[in-house]
């Protein structure tokens, strides 16, 4: 009973060049048609969508292709009375979109346009007694929200001074989600998942607590995510997906183990997932492109040293230059 390895094969003729200009065109025209069905159906995550598109363009040195004033106005209009942000003006607030809003405003250096104190207060109130974070007032708990809280406060410059959350409890909750394979899940007892691992390791990196992670054990699990095609999956026995080029690769980078996988192979997989006509990147070769996979493909290529891109920060998924400007120092384990 041999298990079949779930994977895809790259076509010989698949593109091996990085289609920088096509991606700029794809991203800057995305959402121009406000009546497009796909566009309307994604209103519930608009703010994150804006973050994906803007950050991808920023990494492509083309931030100016979007209208800054319109975007900042939109983001500001998403802040609710409680201080948190919804994905669009008439939607409910969530810590997910609060982080996206803050990331977008940091990219434009426009944090002064919103009520920062209220946002900080909002995040503080979402921490529970056990150190975990709820996503909103409905009390869904997930380590993604722990990451959103820590990353948001760090970007707002309120993680250390005047900080409303309990760091120690926050770390203890994250550690209670650690598993036998060194990875992390959504909640205590949840299975390890690369997206969740990125959130937990990212939060620990921001908090300077990476020594809790068994970098050798987790690094081994992460490098085993690479499949013969060069692509990465998010869990054992799953298909490769370009977005894991980000979740897995950035975690490996934080742990100083980027060279534990075949960088060239992954690069070819991402490049093969580009649409050479429309621009943009899909989850895997031949599929339909979207801004989400386009950003994480581009961010992955940046980590792999693609010369046409700005350097990306492995924790915040934003240009390193923005993080430097905000003077944010995070812990990254040395890469040898």
């Amino acid at each position, binding site marked *: *009973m*041999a*298990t079949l*390895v779930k994977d895809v094969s790259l076509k010989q003729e698949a593109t091996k060049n990085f289609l920088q200009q096509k991606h700029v065109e794809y991203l800057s025209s995305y959402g121009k048609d406000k009546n497009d069905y796909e566009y309307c*159906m994604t209103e*519930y*995550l608009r703010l994150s969508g804006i973050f994906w598109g803007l950050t991808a363009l920023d990494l492509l040195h083309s931030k100016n292709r979007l209208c800054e004033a319109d975007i900042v106005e939109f983001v500001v209009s998403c802040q609710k009375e409680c201080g948190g942000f*919804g994905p669009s003006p*008439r*939607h*409910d607030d*969530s810590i997910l979109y609060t982080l996206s809003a803050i990331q977008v405003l940091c990219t434009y250096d426009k944090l002064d346009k919103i009520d920062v104190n209220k946002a900080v207060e909002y995040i503080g109130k979402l921490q529970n007694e056990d150190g975990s974070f709820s996503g*909103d007032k*409905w009390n*869904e708990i*997930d380590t993604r929200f722990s990451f959103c809280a820590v990353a948001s406060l760090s970007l707002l410059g309120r993680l250390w001074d005047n900080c409303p959350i309990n760091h120690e409890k926050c770390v203890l909750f994250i550690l209670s989600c650690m*598993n*036998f*394979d060194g990875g992390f*899940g*959504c*909640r205590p*007892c*949840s*299975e*390890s*998942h690369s997206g969740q691992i990125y959130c937990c390791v990212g939060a620990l990196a921001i908090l*300077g*607590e990476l*020594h809790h992670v*068994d970098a*050798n*054990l987790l*690094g*081994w*699990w992460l*490098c*085993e995510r*690479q499949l*013969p095609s*060069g692509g990465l999956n998010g*869990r*054992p*026995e*799953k298909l490769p997906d370009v977005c894991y080029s980000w979740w897995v690769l950035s975690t490996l980078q934080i742990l*100083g*183990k980027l*060279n*534990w*996988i*075949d960088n060239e*192979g992954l690069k070819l997989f991402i490049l093969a997932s580009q649409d050479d006509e429309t621009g943009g990147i899909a989850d895997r070769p031949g599929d339909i492109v979207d801004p989400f996979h386009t950003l994480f493909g581009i961010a992955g290529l940046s980590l792999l040293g693609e010369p046409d891109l700005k350097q990306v920060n492995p924790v915040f998924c934003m240009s390193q230059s923005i993080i430097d400007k905000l003077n944010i120092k995070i*812990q990254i384990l*040395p*890469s*040898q």
Partner: protein
Amino acid sequence: MEITKLLLAANSDYSSMWNYRKNAFLHLKTLKNEDEMKSMFDNELQFIESCLRNNPKSYGCWHHRCFVMLHMMKPNWERELQLCDLFLQFDERNFHCWDYRRFVTNHSNVPHEKEIEVTNKIIASNFSNYSSWHYRSKLLPQVYPDPTDSKRIEEKKLLEELELVQNAFFTDPNDQSAWFYHRWLLGRGDKEQYIVSLIVNRSPPSVFCCLRKPVKMFNGTLSVDDTTQTVDWTSSMSERYSHLWFCKLEDGFKKGQQHTVSCEVESSKLSCCLEENCQKATVCLPINREMFQDHTSQAKLSVLEDELNSCNELNDLEPGNKWVMLTLVLLMRAVSPKQHSEKISTMLDALTEIDSQRKRYYLDLRSKYAIEDCIVETNLNENRLNISGMKLTQICHLELVPTLTHLNISHNCLQNLTVPFANLFCLEVLEANDNKITNISGLKDVPNLKSINLDSNDISDVKQFEYLKTCRCLEKLSIRSNPVCESEKQFPTTFLLHFQ
């Protein structure tokens, strides 16, 4: 309510709509009687189920289901377990469903034993199910805890699990789920904290203490000649957590007298004798193999030997299987590293070929083993360590050798000296020539470093030498045969003073 239903049927990730319904239910609860509410909640559960069938990975759907169950007067948990069974049949790896299952079992007090049975069934039908193995790793320690470590399982159960997982990888040696689980079974818990070394200075009277694990605050008990001292430990590193701690002694030492200084933390104690006519004394904990056993060593030797035999058997049946080979390496390392050293090395070499995507993982593992062997075989009280000519791709374990004055890492394959050397605060001479080093950022703040040899490396950026500015005792730096030498004119003159 009907409109939000239509919207959610089209897109179940629309979380504001679920929130809208939650608000509505909370309001209705204040108006309707129990029976009316029951039927509304039942309908809602049915609606959620239809949404889940379209989108079984919707965070919002599963969370809304939790909400409904928590607000029902008499929730039918049994029915929910059946729903989980059903959804896990569609997709046995759906982590949302597994999480919901744990929510249900927690609220309805399903005994862990019963859940172990569920994983038994799933694994029996298909070994290759990572989610089930994962669940077992959480359940078994609760039902069969190891008396010494609550995160692990007792010996008898461990043996049964090893047999089960062996069945799995003998059936399909390429099934990675079984191998990850196997590695966990043979692993061990957290490393204990202990004091690696003490360094005592007579004047100014002070003590350095080095710890195995870094800590944020250190409150080790320090005593001089059996009298406990009140001391303030400070970390000498800029990191938030530190291996290295320093304190001043208020009362100091009596001139020309012998003193015994001891430090104690958790169950570890180390004592150092400052002889009457000495200015400084150093003591290192003798380092044995035990300290390096991070994985594959919890089990008794006999168990490990049995596992080794089985894996050897499998290796004969399936030559060239990377999972078998790596497990063999780990087991040989745990059973008898010395006896198997040649075979371990050959296997790791073969793995770099067979599994070339992860080549660097195997090279780093080999480097780690080589360094461990060297540390174990060196008398550290001589304060010298030679790990040259071993094809090392990484340096590790520096926190265990803080008293070194001489370190030779030359003639290896190192590309970066990025690990912090600042813990090596006695280090005077570093020989790092004949590597492929491009980056030396780890050489910041090495307080007593006098001489560095970086000949024949790949340093091309003159800025790299900026890091050495913080090594205040540096007298001699040799950088012959580096790309940077070809453009020597660019150098700041301060560095030229030290050139050989």
